């Protein structure tokens, strides 16, 4: 049994997964304190992790109906993420591994999003193209094997979820904007306004900053009264542009790699129109349950099945890496 811990952002997560990829517990303790701040406050996130990380681990063991005696490996997110937040989970996992003499497997958070779909019951097997779109990350990778992952493209500016949240804010919706924007968009016409999708920009990278600016100008041009009256149309058209921006790159990636299998992960995968659009592609499409798309520890255990444990003498000294400090070793392992 693998016990996994993930605290890279604002969810305190622990999971128990067996070596066949069956999930026995996937506990996600959402902090619910950041919404009032319009985004994650790193210090508050770290504080909340420190108050509950061990309790969440105990909860995962209880839910799985096991004790630490049944655990054979400990897995933990090493990065990238908020370093103060990461350290809480890292110390928790290290302490359990050291004190119990268990192997520790450090895992890259982004690999977790890429391989979440390998867990049962989806059990989607490589090779596949994977799209990960969340509040913090947006990228496309080619997964030939759990150990052979190549990044195909990323975002030049904002992540897709960030673009959604910023657009939602411009439309006066609360943070996080995803679900509210989707609900409002359902009442609008996605063809009402033409927002840029960069369809003519070649390659597999996306960019969302122009889209956001374009919404801002459109609202300004319409004037307050008209913009308010047409909020649903604006939301629907904006959402359509985000979905198209992603879908066009996914289509190209499938074509370029010759693969006909697609996995989708990250919080934006909850979006109905995106699921519909990608589901209509001529490919086998795997989108795991929402609890496996947003941050979770089961996906960290999923990766640990395929990664070596640290040498025992290296466990106590293991350090985290923040966003932007990903060591070459982690990048080349992908």
């Amino acid at each position, binding site marked *: 049994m693998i016990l996994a811990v993930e605290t890279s952002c604002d969810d305190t997560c622990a999971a128990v997964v067996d070596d066949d990829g069956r999930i026995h517990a996937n506990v996600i303790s959402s902090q619910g304190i950041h919404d*009032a*701040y*319009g985004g994650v*406050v790193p*210090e*508050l996130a*770290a*504080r909340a*992790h*420190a*108050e*509950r*990380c*061990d*309790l969440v*681990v*105990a909860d995962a063991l209880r839910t799985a109906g096991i004790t*630490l005696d049944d655990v054979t490996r400990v897995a933990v997110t090493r990065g990238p993420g908020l*370093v*103060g937040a990461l*350290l*809480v*989970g*890292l*110390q*928790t*996992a*290290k*302490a*359990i591994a*050291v*004190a*119990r*003499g268990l192997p520790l497997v450090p895992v890259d958070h982004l690999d977790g999003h890429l391989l979440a779909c390998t867990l049962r019951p989806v059990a989607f097997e490589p090779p596949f193209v994977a799209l990960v779109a969340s509040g913090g990350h947006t990228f496309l990778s080619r997964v030939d094997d759990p150990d052979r992952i190549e990044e195909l493209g990323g975002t030049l500016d904002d992540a897709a979820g960030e673009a959604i949240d910023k657009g939602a804010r411009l439309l006066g919706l609360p*943070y996080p904007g995803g679900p509210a924007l989707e609900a409002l968009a359902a009442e609008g016409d996605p063809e009402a306004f033409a927002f840029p999708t960069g369809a003519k920009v070649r390659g597999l990278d996306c960019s969302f900053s122009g889209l956001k600016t374009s919404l801002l100008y459109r609202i300004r041009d319409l004037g307050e009264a008209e913009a308010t009256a047409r909020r649903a149309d604006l939301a629907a058209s904006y959402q359509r542009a985000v979905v198209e921006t992603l879908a066009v790159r996914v289509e190209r990636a499938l074509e370029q790699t010759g693969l006909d299998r697609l996995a989708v992960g990250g919080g934006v995968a909850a979006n109905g129109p995106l699921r519909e659009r990608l589901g209509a592609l001529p490919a086998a499409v795997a989108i795991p349950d929402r609890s496996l798309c947003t941050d979770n520890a089961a996906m960290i255990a999923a990766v640990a099945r395929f990664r070596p444990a640290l040498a025992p003498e290296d*466990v*106590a*000294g*293991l*350090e*985290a890496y923040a966003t932007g400090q990903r060591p070459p070793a982690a990048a080349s392992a992908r």
Partner: protein
Amino acid sequence: MTDRPVVLGLDTATPATVAAAVAPGARSATRIEVPAAGERPGHTRLLLGLAEDALTAVGAGWGDVGRIVVGLGPGTFTGIRVGVATARALALAHGAGLVGIATPAALAEAAGGPGAPFEGRPVLVVQDARRRELFLTWFPDGVAGGAAVVPWTVPHDGLAAALADLGTPPAVAVGDGALAFRDVLTGAGVEVPEDPASHAVDGAALIRAAAASPVGAPGDVRPLYVRDADAVPTAERR
């Protein structure tokens, strides 16, 4: 608990990484790593290794630990979280009892606890709080007073006024802030020990300072931040 007689102490509130183990028969081992000038604290990298060293030195293993004492701060936010998260997970790993104690209580214990040079006298702990401030913790009746330890912050240039406000003058001041503001303190008649070790957290003193503290629920063992996080809700901005 007699089958698990070893007590482990951990503190990461100051730049030093501190671990100590005490076993029956007065066997004890303390480990401390202080970062070199200009270097960052090595709490994450060092804490578990030092703890394991200390345990080995008293002939014990992780499974022999029945009680874990952790310094709660104040100190750097990240530092105290590393200590608390580690201690709580270690307690979970083998079902050991967990006790959290304010870090200044360990400094005060070493200066004014039983058998210490200032036994029974009033102790002021002065810690560097960065941002041109100090954390002060006041033990007016000595460490045996049992009064709740409530650290507070004063700006650097407010130390003299804070001393005057105490009522009773401290006999001694310890902590890295006491070293840095030796002149202000000695000018007010407060003794500041020469020995640098008096101003560093001693793991064995941490364990002694918590000797009478009951084991708490792990969820109640939380960092002592003293300061709020800098964050303003959207609704209160501009």
